[in-house]
């Protein structure tokens, strides 16, 4: 009985670990974006301001969340920076005249609404959020 309980706890721990290593955020885009997938480095370039287009030529506009678990995970998984470092790097571009700060939205619902109605918009939400009117991009 004790061995069964121990094995069950161990399996639960393993499943939890596996679940947590899978990204809980998905990358979404306006239907005008032609591609269905993009590389992690392309995504990082877009959200760091280095690039404003995808390999298929689509002009894209990154959109951010102001705060929250989805934002933290997106930055960690795909940009490799903390929120403070990420904002600081964008402010470098803004204060040197090289870029405008991407739009920041208060909620994931607002993110879906904005991405659905703005050509070229690309953002991110948690997997479980409703996402009608947008397309989900696979990150390779």
């Amino acid at each position, binding site marked *: 009985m004790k061995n069964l309980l121990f094995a069950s706890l161990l399996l639960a721990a393993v499943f939890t670990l596996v679940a947590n290593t899978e990204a809980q955020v998905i990358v979404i885009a306006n239907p005008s974006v032609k591609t269905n997938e993009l590389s992690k480095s392309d995504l990082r370039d877009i959200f760091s301001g*280095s690039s404003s287009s995808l390999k298929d030529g689509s002009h894209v506009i990154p959109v951010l969340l102001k705060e929250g678990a989805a934002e933290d995970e997106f930055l960690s998984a795909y940009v490799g920076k903390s929120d403070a470092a990420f904002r*600081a*790097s964008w*402010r470098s571009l803004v204060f*040197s005249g090289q870029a*405008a700060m991407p739009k920041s939205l208060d909620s994931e619902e607002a993110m879906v609404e904005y991405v659905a109605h703005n050509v070229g918009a690309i953002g991110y939400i948690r997997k479980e959020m409703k996402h009608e009117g947008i397309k989900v991009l696979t990150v390779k």
Partner: protein
Amino acid sequence: MKKILVGVVAGMLVLWAVPARAQSLEDLNIQIHGYATQGFLYTTNNNIFTTNSSDGSPAWTEAVVNVSAQPTPKLRVGVQGRYFLLGNLGNAITLDWAAADYKANDRFGVRFGKVKSPSGLLNEIQDIDPSYVWSLLPQSVYPLESRNSVLSHYGGVVYGTLKLGDKLGKLEYRGFGGQRQLGPTDGYLLNQREAGLVLPNGLGGTLEGGALHWKTPLPGLMIGASDFRDNHWTAQLTGNNGALTGTEKVEPFNLPDYFARYEKDKIMVAYEYDRIPVKASLQFPGLPGTPIGLDERSWYGMASYKLTEKFSAGVYDSQLVDHHVALGPARYSKDWAISGRYDFNQYLYAKAEQHFIRGTELGFDPDMNPGGLKPATKLTILKIGVSF
């Protein structure tokens, strides 16, 4: 030329304001950003940066306000004003930059007006304190006293990124040209001014240059170089409290700069080398011309590490030697520094930094050190900043 360029940018802002009545402010993506910093300096010997730092000085304040609009996805216009106080320098509001930027695609964009000069590794952001760990960038390459005159120029920048393929990475290019003007109270002219030689209209002229940043196939590694040429500059010169009027002539010179940076996860390592060779002459009627000049060769190596989500630490070794100066402490400046930065949140941060400086070539002026300069100084900096 300056007035024409700023006028063109202002005109573009007005032209877009007319149809903007039909668009909401939201559509124009109008943004306002800013930051402010307050620093405190303390030196064990020698007063630095025209402050009374040997007694502790809070005379280091900066504030910036930035307004921009993006009426179309490819066009952006903006203006940034700055207040800068450092000891006896600045204490004025100036136009940092005012530009219109059209980015056709990732391969080509153009920016014109009063624009940041894209030379070296950090010139475009050297005045943006929220961007980096250090309170003071390596002074050998980015001297604070004369920073404002090299930050920007009136003219334009063309820029873009060329993809070289998966095996060769990407090449970012920038080409720039226009006119630069040093004001009569600029830090570059401080020692000359304190010696009684004043340029009442400042010093300026045309320049052109370029920069290449190779983002190598190794993720995080960038290697680059830049060069720009200051062309023949001439300015009115006065001496002996205005009793003498003459001319200062600066011969054309290039400023080559080589740099590399590697960033991965929490680590950043960078290196930069530049050379500033200047030949000039002071001419007063009836008197023989006086040649002046410098040949500064500078480099630094720096590294930073993000210890926690909120705390980063950094260290650098920064050195400059002026080959025109006789042997002794006045010929060089060697500075190693250790820094820490704490981000309370995305808006507020604080920095602390300790410098160990040998040599007196940089940062020290005779007026603030009437008893003479000691060859070594320790400098402590505390700084708080807010940005939005």
